[in-house]
């Protein structure tokens, strides 16, 4: 846990009400930012930095990240703020008239002072063609089918011309409602991975190919301008120069990108794995900060028709892990209280003021404190406030990201537990198999890398005797075997011998 001793200093001038979640995990992990939105925010940074030749570097030093994010208001108005488009297509027959109607309907496009969409018509043979393209892009968009505001709907990231940041209802400013730095943290993690050069060399051709037809298509919906609208962003913070998750994540992304899957098929896996590693990061750091002595375990149930012992263990461990982040918050404050500095200050004249100053520097909190002026009440109030604050978002990461990526589920029961779905299993498998691997070896690898437990061999080692039942775990592993086989990812040889296969692995050795 040497990384904990290298925690970086807080940012200057942050608009944060305290610095505890931030000090432990960064500024910040946000539960309402779905995995796809994390990825899109990450792309905003990556595309900007790549165009400036500084991708995956922190040229100004740690936590000085600055980037420019595009707004692409014309594109977004066309796709998500043009409710009359299809009405016009159906209701008007003449092509010219359709264009005219539509331009009229767009005269009050959001966020643009003097809307001008005249560049569109020369680029399409007909209004029909234009409408078809719009419909297609809408159908592949992200959050496009939700009832979120039009400024929180996104184009699928076909390329750099498809990426823009979240904006408020009027498209005047970013209110950080959905893009709340989880993607920036992701970017910083990869900046600090020792594998970043290799990763970048694989990411760039996949994402940066401007001539890719889909990206071109999206660009054609946008005006050509020398000064595209956008804004500068800064103030992301990742507390540790080093953490094993950074490399683990980069390693998985590299493995996926090396598979050369067709089209954009790799993206859902990158998105899933990114959020998966953020969960791993949060839990592992929380355990280290709280000093939890038991091994980190995520027992996964392959959904069984009836309640099994595996399900019960999984329930319990889910609960246990779900409390970890709050334990970390408490432990962090306890550490301040137990520090020599605090203990000394407490005994000195003007103890309260001294202690408050300690909190001001350590956790950037205390200015607004108005209750009883003694160190005990002061730190208890902090403890309470910090937990309250953490409960709102930080404590939900494990659950929300877990559900989003299909690690955590209620399927077949009423309580949450770890029950990975097919998509997650597939992502994990593709990230870990060069070509093929014997199933038991694969299970051992999942345990070793992610603390995931499916079968009896791993469970036997780390579970207390009372919670271990060989048969239940064997049945669980068997269900996994059937699932993988039915997804075409496993070849059974005979009783007790199966190979997990990576269908995208290249045959050339």
């Amino acid at each position, binding site marked *: 846990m040497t990384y904990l001793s290298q925690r970086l200093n807080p940012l200057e001038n942050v608009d944060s009400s305290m610095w505890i979640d931030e000090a432990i995990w960064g500024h910040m992990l946000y539960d309402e930012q779905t995995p796809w939105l994390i990825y899109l925010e990450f792309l905003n940074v990556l595309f900007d930095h790549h165009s400036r030749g500084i991708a995956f570097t922190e040229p100004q030093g740690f936590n000085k990240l600055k980037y420019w994010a595009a707004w692409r208001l014309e594109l977004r108005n066309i796709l998500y703020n043009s409710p009359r488009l299809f009405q016009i297509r159906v209701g008007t027959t003449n092509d010219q008239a359709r264009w005219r109607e539509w331009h009229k309907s767009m005269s009050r496009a959001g966020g643009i002072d003097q809307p001008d969409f005249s560049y569109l018509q020369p680029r399409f043979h007909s209004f029909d063609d234009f409408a078809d393209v719009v419909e297609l892009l809408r159908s592949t968009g992200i959050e496009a089918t939700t009832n979120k505001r039009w400024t929180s709907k996104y184009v699928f990231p076909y390329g750099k011309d498809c990426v823009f940041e979240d904006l408020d209802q009027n498209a005047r400013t970013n209110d950080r409602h959905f893009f709340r730095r989880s993607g920036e943290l992701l970017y910083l993690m990869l900046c600090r991975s020792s594998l970043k050069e290799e990763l970048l060399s694989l990411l760039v051709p996949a994402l940066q190919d401007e001539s890719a037809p889909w990206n071109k*298509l999206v660009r*054609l919906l946008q005006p050509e301008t020398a000064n595209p609208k956008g804004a500068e962003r800064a103030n992301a913070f990742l507390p540790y120069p080093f953490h094993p998750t950074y490399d683990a994540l980069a390693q998985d992304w590299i493995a996926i990108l090396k598979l050369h899957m067709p*089209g954009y098929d790799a993206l859902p896996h990158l998105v899933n794995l990114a959020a998966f590693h953020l969960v791993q990061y949060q839990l592992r750091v929380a355990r280290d900060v709280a000093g939890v002595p038991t091994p980190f375990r995520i027992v996964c149930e392959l959904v069984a028709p009836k309640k099994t012992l595996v399900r019960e263990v999984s329930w319990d461990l889910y609960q246990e892990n779900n409390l970890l982040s709050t334990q970390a918050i408490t432990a962090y404050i306890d550490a301040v209280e137990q520090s020599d500095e605090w203990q000394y200050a407490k005994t000195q004249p003007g103890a309260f003021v001294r202690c408050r100053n300690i909190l001001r520097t350590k956790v950037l909190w205390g200015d607004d404190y108005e209750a009883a002026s003694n160190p005990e009440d002061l730190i208890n109030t902090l403890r309470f406030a910090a937990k309250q604050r953490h409960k709102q978002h930080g404590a939900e990461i494990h659950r929300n990201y877990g559900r989003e990526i299909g690690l955590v589920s209620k399927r077949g029961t009423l309580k949450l537990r770890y029950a990975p779905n097919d998509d997650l299993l597939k992502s994990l498998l593709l990230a870990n198999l060069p070509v093929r691997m*014997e199933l038991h070896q694969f299970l051992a690898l999942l345990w070793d890398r992610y603390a995931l437990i499916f079968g009896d061999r791993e469970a036997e080692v780390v579970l207390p005797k009372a919670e271990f039942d060989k048969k239940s775990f064997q049945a669980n592993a068997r269900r996994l075997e059937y699932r993988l086989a039915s997804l075409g990812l496993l070849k059974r*040889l*005979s*009783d*007790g011998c199966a190979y997990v296969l990576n269908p995208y692995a290249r045959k050339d050795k």
Partner: protein
Amino acid sequence: MIAKDWLLFLRQYAPVPRNDNMYDETIQRSAQRAGVEPILFEHPAQTHVISCFNQDSADPVSVILTGTAGDGKTHLCRQVWIALRGDPALWGSDNPYLSLKYHYPKDRTTWPETQDPNLYREVTIHFIRDLSGWAPQQGSAWDQNKLDLLLRLCRAIFDPASDEVFLIAANDGQLIECWRRLPDAEPVVKARSLLEKLLVEDHQTEKGTRLKMFNLSRWDSAEIFDRAYSALLEHPGWATCTQEVPGETQVFGPKCPIRRNYELLQTPLVHSRLRSLIQLCDYNGLHLPIRQLLLLLSNAILGHPDCNDHLMRPSDVPKLIRSGTLSKASLFNNILGGNLSDTRRQSITIFDYFDRFQLGYETSNKVDNILIFGEGDPHFGELFNSLVRSDPLYGADEAFFAARDAYIAGGEDDEKESKEFLNMLVAQRRGLFFRIPDELAETLGLWELSVFRFAGEYLSQVIKILRDGQCVKRPILSRLVKGLNRIFTGMLINSEREILLATSGNYSQAKISRLLVDRVSVEPRHGERVALSLSNSGRATLTVHLSDTIEENLELNLVRYEFLSRIATEGALPASFSKECYEDLLAFKTRLLSAHKTRRDTDGASEGLGLRILNVTSQGLPEDRFVEVIT
């Protein structure tokens, strides 16, 4: 040997708690005790395996026999031992490791004409007939001698001058496990990856190595079934049963269910239907070892739910005749394990596989009309008589008629009675599956009695046709293409002359794919075509050729065939086996799209900035609109 001994011996092959006859190691002893010859037949692999070691081979190489438990590995090992004149007493010992010496020509190419000892070299043949019994238990260390022996094997595989060869019997799991536990020396690592490759890729040997792998689980179960079937029915034990001229209520008397089952099992129709089921298991990738086939046959003859272990002993027969429960011994029910308890049945591989056909639970109106309203009906009466009433023991008996009448007349409160009748219907439908003659199979919808409605067509119109070297009929191929198109696009398309490769734009496996990438002609055109053929391993394969050099294969197993056929004819499927297949076929589309990209790259063609948007006309025909963007 008397009839009783034979029948009790046969019972040992069936699902009894301690079935000694399941293991080659114990069967010799139990046969001696009973004074009965074991059921014996030659494994189709036997000549291949023996010829690796006898005079057919001037330079023998090591052989690994692998497969599922009960495939006959130990038995084959013994055959080699016998062929090489090994000492039978030694084989009778418990030692899992044996060896013998044999002479082979020095020049390693041809056998000399003379016996001149200078022309021969001595080769040690090591037999590890039970690898798991021989290797140390999980967690304990290797014995140095054993470790040395396996290291010698690893070296021998790659050494053309080696003078020792090995014959090892092990199931694949044990094999891989054993090699994984060996220390990572260079020859071990090489051998390990060779074994893995041969196993996973289903090859028998690899060029430049001195190893042959026989995976007995890849052998045609139907072929083995035929041999087991003949060996069992022609066993001399049956002669003793008839010799004894039994009385009316005695074993093998005129009313004896064992005799009835034995006779029924011999009828060509029962044989061929049973064979079809086994063949279909093979074509679904479900392998049935010899042990399971013998279990099936003995259970079919001896099954009765009311007896100890649900299997009749000779002494049970008079009691059963007196109790009037003979119909419960129905061969047709026993074939599907119907005599066993649910848990017992589900734990036995072959019945688990047969359960997937859902025989007795699937039906058609026609079949149920015959069974329920057939008696005396102008349309169905004759069929009822010939198919149901004609079998006095397992066909319609008094109890059936009574239950049927109550069911037809019954009110709603007769739940128990109707349930009983419905159970009888299950048994009767199973009977019909084995009684409907081939000439009526299509008219009566024989295969509608199973979940695989297209199974009959699959066997006769696809597998057999391909095996005979002929072409599958066009309408069948068209139907499969239509099924593929519906899955590839997610739309109810009727197109069957070309394969439509479509995506959603950002995901090749999206449920609805409206962007047409290309059309691939089914009829040969510029190297494109779609064809059905047999793979090297004898499986039906659908191949999409994108050019003379670029193609993608899809193994057309029974489940996929049924799935595609039903999607094409009905549009949708009950959820039961659809998800698995659906994923499978979408993955095939992804492979086709990758292959298509390869073709485009080879052609040097660019993607262009136009979109082909797919729509379906009211006739279900695909129509693509080209949307072009001006740059």
